[in-house]
């Protein structure tokens, strides 16, 4: 008889597994719902006598419709090009901004740091009209560059802020030692600080990738003509006809559209968490 061990088991169940299970259900339910609806025949979708959470028969018609009757693969390609392009550009800029604000001490540095973050708070609904004029003047309308150059307006501020905090957590002595050994500032940054900042870079990268992948308004207004649609724009323009929603295909597009983001997270989850929590316990 091991009463202590039993108590430990029960307390683990109540304090760990039960909350974990509740979180898992809460977080995974939308995906479960999307999957169930995407596999249901139309006849079952509006049948209220059936339990809506269960599958009674399975069909791939909604996926077939998505692949054969819409340009889903073209939307996916467009989304990938735009998201990867905007992420690389935003990371490149954010590294420089974050490094400068995180490592250097100069007059106005704190204010600049706050200003960069405040820029993130300007909503795209205010920016899209003036940005449309910029896109037009540079004749970028309906080209990939229209989004690759506009997404950084909301990606760079937050990524810079994140990286600024991360760079501050890396020991300054390491960089100083490199400088004493004859490295230039760029070499010290590239060869000493950057490898140590990898978790932060991955966090910022995943953050940029996710926001770019899901962005709707700029993609609708600046691109979105003919075949130049991203997944969020293509699904609502081709799978919602006036007041009739193609729920099955919409959910199929939702499931498939979330795969790249899920893959990105699952590969880098450990680094991502490390990046997000860096500095949480350090000054």
């Amino acid at each position, binding site marked *: 008889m091991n009463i202590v061990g039993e108590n430990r088991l029960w307390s683990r169940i109540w304090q760990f597994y039960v909350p974990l299970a509740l979180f898992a259900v809460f977080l995974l339910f939308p995906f479960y719902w999307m999957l169930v609806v995407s596999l249901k025949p139309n006849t079952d979708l509006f049948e209220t006598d059936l339990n809506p959470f269960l599958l009674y028969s399975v069909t791939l018609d909604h996926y077939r419709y998505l692949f054969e009757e819409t340009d889903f693969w073209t939307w996916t390609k467009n989304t990938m090009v735009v998201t990867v392009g905007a992420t690389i550009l935003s990371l490149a800029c954010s590294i420089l901004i974050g490094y400068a604000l995180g490592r250097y001490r100069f007059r106005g540095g704190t204010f600049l740091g706050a200003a960069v973050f405040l820029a993130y708070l300007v909503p795209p609904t205010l920016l*899209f009209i003036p940005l449309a004029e910029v896109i037009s003047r540079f004749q970028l*309308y309906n080209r990939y560059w229209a989004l690759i150059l506009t997404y950084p307006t909301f990606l760079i501020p937050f990524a810079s802020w994140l990286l600024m905090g991360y760079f501050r957590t890396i020991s300054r002595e390491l960089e100083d030692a490199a400088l004493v050994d004859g490295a230039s500032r760029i070499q010290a940054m590239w060869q000493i600080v950057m490898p140590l900042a990898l978790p932060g870079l991955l966090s910022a990268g995943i953050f940029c990738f996710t926001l770019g992948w899901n962005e709707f308004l700029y993609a609708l207004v600046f691109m979105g003509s003919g075949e130049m649609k991203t997944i969020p724009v293509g699904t*609502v*323009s081709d799978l919602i006809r*006036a*007041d*009739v929603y193609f729920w099955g295909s919409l959910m199929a597009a939702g499931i498939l559209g979330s795969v790249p983001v899920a893959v990105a997270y699952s590969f880098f989850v450990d680094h991502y968490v490390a990046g997000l929590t860096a500095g949480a316990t350090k000054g």
Partner: protein
Amino acid sequence: MTDERISRLLQEATRLRYSRRQVLRRAVALGLSVPAVTAALDRSAIAAPGPRFGRAPAVLQGTKLTILAATYFVPAAQDFFVQQAQQWGQENNVEMTLDFVNWPDLQPKIGAAVQAKSGPDIVELWDTWPYLYYQSMVEVNDLANKLGEAQGGYFDWVVKTAAVDGEWYSIPTGNSTSAFAYRISYFQEAGAEEFPQTWEELFEVGKKLKAMGKPLGQALGHSPGDPPSFVYPYMWAYGAMEVAEDGKTVMFNQPEFVEGMKIFIQAWKDAFDETGLSWDDSVNNSAFLSDQISATLNGNSIYLAALKPEEEGGKPEIAEDMSHAGYPAGPAGRFNNLGSRSLGIMSYSGNVEGAKAFLEWWASEEQYQAWLEVYEGYIIPPTPKFIELPVYTEDPKLAPYAEVATYARNKGYAGPANQNAARVFAEYIIVDTFARAVQDGDAEAAIKWGADRLERIYGR
């Protein structure tokens, strides 16, 4: 090969006595070139040709045109419009691009295009929008008047909502409208052999229907279609309106309307599905098709969806048991809200001549009528010329949709459907007045809130 298929289609049409509309729908389904089928039809005895509008001038050769419009409820009609445009483009060597966006996304795209002076050449405008964008559009009085005169003149609701103080900056294309879709058997079970003629009678029947577990359904969320379709006509039926004819004096806070709102607040509890506060345009469709509600205001999209074969998600048994009815009356009369959509040319377009030539060709009787026919009666035409087409009359269940156009008022009534009316519409002030009333149960406070908001917009 294509000629053979067209020929086979015409033989089938003769054998089975297809109407012109049925032939065109079959053509779309078979993937045939609709203009080619139209031309073959004109040569055959199946249908008489309409007047022909001339081919576009040679100067357009090698140019481009982009058209931006809202998605169509009837997919075949959207495909048909694309085919028409592409056929015209091929005949005139003009590269055509057509973009269809979800309803709420149309205005951001137009707004950005206007600001950037770049984007589509032709845009679809909804009622009240011509007042917002006319300064960025090409005046098309000649074309609009010519088409209107050739088709018996535009309806009053069209002139008030698609023209800007009598000037045309776009070509009216008509609009979908609402009527009550209702379940015949449930209404009979509740003691109503016919659809009630007044709002109060409807609410009385609604009480019994709700007790039967089949309430009335009405969206009161922020959605551009169904919520305004109810709140504007109900407001007018109880004697209120946004403004007087001068376009400035707010006429919203009327004692009769306050009484009407009290009746509605009670009816919301007794007769309606109260989750309607969060509904958008799509929810009443799915609620009706899943047998959760007994009646709702809607375009004919519910009926057309129900008519589909069962394997395509249709509900033939519901289609059989449902019908449509016009708007009930209130103490001040019977009203409906209707405004025309239109197609306009942006003034920044580098191909204004091409855009005009396309619109003239597409709005000609022959092309426009074929488009209306493929649209299955969903769109009410802007002129009386087409209102007697079989597509509006052959199915008696759809007849109310053509009738409701006869007592339609514009948004912003009794003033014009101008930028103020557009703002009231865009900010959902009338819809929110109703939503506040049923949420708080205070008719006076809700109407006062709405009147204050209207005063700020109209009283400037």
